[in-house]
């Protein structure tokens, strides 16, 4: 599904990704771990199409297409979804209307009919229940006045409604207490499917206790320095990133 080859990216003249190579197949859940400043969030942002990053070299292929050529909204319509580390508050713009526009933009792109209000609300109510969200959410502005945990739950709720092919979760566990983490993890797990790939970017191992990844990669200094199965995350937890950097000689 996704083939990243020797990707180099910089922002404001600073090199962040320095030759990152990674392949992800449909149905897989990957975790990308690494110390602060390693380039984890940059990778997620570059894949979703955030402007401001300069792609110096390398390529990203998504279902055989050049992903880097597409505008952020085109990527979204092609099934890429980024759950933000810091979801943005947009007062005055209703949560549900944004979600409806997002879903219909994707459906239209796929050549499907737009959902009518009734069918759409049925989906939203079901997913809100899944994420244990308060019904008052329906009348509020996008993330307006939400707590940190509510914002993260809202991101996963959006993901559940939009049913992306490639879901990128950027530090989705940060700022969550254990109960909220469980809700978020249950939500993500319910979305695991043979057609969908999920990439979790995280600093800590704890999320991986709840969402068990197929593959774990360690990102350091802009490159994947080690890949393995779930046990790699546990090793990292036990020894810390310094151990790894020494081990791989970076």
């Amino acid at each position, binding site marked *: 599904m996704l083939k990243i080859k020797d990707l180099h990216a910089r922002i404001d003249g600073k090199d962040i990704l320095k030759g990152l190579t990674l392949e992800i197949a449909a149905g897989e859940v990957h975790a990308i771990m690494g110390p602060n400043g390693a380039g984890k969030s940059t990778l997620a942002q570059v894949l*979703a199409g955030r402007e401001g990053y300069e792609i110096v070299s390398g390529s990203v292929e998504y279902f055989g297409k050049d992903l880097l050529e597409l505008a952020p909204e085109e990527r979204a319509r092609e099934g890429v979804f980024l759950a933000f580390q810091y979801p*943005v508050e947009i007062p005055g713009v209703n949560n549900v209307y944004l979600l409806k*526009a997002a879903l219909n933009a994707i459906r239209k792109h796929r050549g499907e009919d737009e959902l009518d209000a009734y069918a759409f609300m049925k989906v939203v109510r079901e997913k809100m229940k899944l994420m244990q969200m308060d019904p008052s959410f329906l009348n509020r502005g996008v993330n307006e006045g939400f707590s940190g945990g509510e914002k993260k739950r809202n991101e996963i709720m959006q993901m559940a409604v939009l049913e992306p092919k490639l879901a990128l979760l950027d530090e989705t566990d940060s700022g969550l207490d254990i109960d909220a983490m469980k809700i978020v993890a249950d939500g993500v797990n319910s979305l695991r499917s043979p057609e969908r790939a999920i990439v979790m970017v995280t600093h800590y191992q704890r999320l991986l206790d709840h969402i068990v990844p197929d593959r774990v990669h360690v990102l350091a200094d802009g490159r994947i320095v080690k890949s393995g199965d779930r046990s790699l995350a546990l090793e990292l937890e036990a020894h810390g990133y310094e151990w790894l950097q020494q081990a791989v000689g970076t």
Partner: protein
Amino acid sequence: MLESLRQHWRDQAAALPGNAGQRERALEAFLAQGLPTTAEEEWKYTSLAHLEEAHLTLPGPVDLAEAMAAVARHAVPGLEGPRLVFVNGQLIPPACHLDGLPAGLAIESLAQVLRENDTADTLDRVVDLDRYRLARLNTALFQDGARVRAARGVAGDAPVYLLFLTLGDAEALQLVQPRVLIEAAEAASVTVIEHHCGEGEAAVINAVTEIVAQPGSRVTHYRIQEQADSHAQVAGLNARLDRDAALVCHNVDLGGALVRNDVHVRLIAPGADVELNGLYFTRGTSHVDNHTRIDHLAPRTTSREDYRGVLDGRSRAVFNGKVLVAEDAQKIEAHQSNNNLLLSRECEVDTKPELEIYADDVRCSHGATVGQLDATALFYLRSRGLDEDTARGLLTFAFAEEVITRLGIAPLAERLSGTVIGHLPDSDRLREFT
């Protein structure tokens, strides 16, 4: 202009309510000094020069059926409380309703007040005439207006709606001069919406509002301006707040060709508190100038000011926020911000905070920004599949909406949200999101 005003005075003095001597003195003092010019620092960016040559006329009687139809087109739906309606400066009694007012809340036609019981303190009680000379022109020749008085301890909770509608006339450039006096006695509270709107050919509106807030009173004031694109409006809001009095002012400008607002609030005793919220949306070649001035004249007085602007086309906006802290006014707090969004390359904003502080134990802050939309928010919306134009429109709306949300009166907020969206490109699409 000056000669035409004198002629009006000669022709209409007998018909104008109130103290003829006071009006004549105001006119002569105004004529002696003339209109403000761009040579004066306070008027540096805003020129009234075209009025020097204009032949201004005072509006005559209005056709009632025409007035009622215009009121139906402009009045904010859903404001069911007490209401006075003026069309071209004349009270339109069939459009007014004052039923069921709480005892102690009086809402009257100013002309009627002056005819029945003119006392020297009905006009020019608060306004600093040397600083704001346009008030003299209003005092000299205004035809009618409103007085809202809340007696001691009275809670006038339902908003008082004052609609000032200007219908421009192709044959004459009319000078329409709304006048409002709001008095809140000790511990009283009152809410007044001044809604200035208009249609038709060019007209000039010169509005003056005075607010007297006695100790412990609370006044909430709205000045909503939706004039026609051909209209010029100058408005002076002057308030004096006594001990522990609180004033909240909302100033919204969504129309007009040339607009100048002067707000002057004096906090004269400890505990007085004022909050100024402002929103302006300028388009085409419109010019909107907001000058605010808050005088902290006593210790422990507080002020907060947040003005936001959205500029498009070749429009121009000016914001000048002055805060004066007198020598003995210790432990005061004053915060001010002015943020502007520029939607086109041709628009321009001049923003200037001005702090003049003579006390040493104060907390003051100010900040101004002129910029584009938040890149992260834009990316967030696009990453959900929205095209860039829609995302930009929504974020512009959201920027304005933060001020509109603070209005606190649902029918009014709904109306203004609708006007703001209507000003944005692709408005039909944006409406689906609100």
